[in-house]
């Protein structure tokens, strides 16, 4: 896979995670409500997730640029996207109105489909990075001089 594509994937993923984290941190109350609205977690558990999630996203975004933890960051971003997709899927299955616009059920499904499509792109990017990092780590393990890079 071309290194330019991987670089763009890294820029896109870290940019999206950083933006998401900043937006969540700017309005933690709304983040808390948004998580609670999925009706998967209790109020206090939603509070814990709302507090930790932005920093986990920042860790993933920053980690993608640190060679020592790049593999873990790729795995973390893949896990995050999978968690988001599962939560969204469960909300749609239970017909919950979790879209910010709240323009009815039809809009919910349109929004959900779009969000699924966006998440699918993020999932593909994370998987590509994880695959590349796994290969790179394997090569390093088998090379005579085990440097980090």
């Amino acid at each position, binding site marked *: 896979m071309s290194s330019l594509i991987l670089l763009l994937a890294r820029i896109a993923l870290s940019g999206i995670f950083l933006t998401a984290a900043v937006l969540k941190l700017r309005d933690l*109350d709304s983040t808390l409500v948004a998580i609670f609205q999925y009706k998967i977690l209790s109020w206090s558990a939603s509070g814990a997730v709302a507090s930790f999630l932005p*920093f986990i996203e920042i860790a993933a975004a920053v980690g993608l640029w640190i060679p020592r933890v790049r593999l873990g960051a790729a*795995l973390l971003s893949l896990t995050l996207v999978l968690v988001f997709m599962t939560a969204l899927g469960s909300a749609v299955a239970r017909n919950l109105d979790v879209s910010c616009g709240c323009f009815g059920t039809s809009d919910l499904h349109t929004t959900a489909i779009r969000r699924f499509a966006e998440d699918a792109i993020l999932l593909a990017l994370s998987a590509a990075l994880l695959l590349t990092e796994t290969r790179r*780590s*394997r090569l390093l393990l088998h090379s005579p001089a085990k440097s980090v890079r």
Partner: protein
Amino acid sequence: MFAPACRQLLTLLAAAAIPGAATFFFDLKWKAPAEFKTISVRSASPKAGEFIWVDVRSFERYEAAHIADAVSFDEALPEAGLESLLKIWTPEKQIIVYGEGVGSERAERSARWLKKALNTPRVLLLEGGWATWPKD
């Protein structure tokens, strides 16, 4: 290859846990869930006239149909909605906020805003929102 990936992942999670814990303990922990009490359509509809209804859907949707005597409230222009509300509101009156459907985030945000602005605990959310309200 799995072990190094997990080790790195745990390192990242540990790094995120420190500011996360600080946020949880100092910012969110004190907030109570009481403001999210809901009322079902079955309980609310027989005595609908006793409540003040706040419709947080778009103005077009409100104009098309709404619960009788409901006040339209646009969260982007809350002061305008508050002005209309203050004409009919008295502290002992129960306000019921409703959005488009189940678990409307807009309804939650507006309810929270109203509760703060009016300094009253008497704000409820309509369970299921407009979607579950009997139309005829």
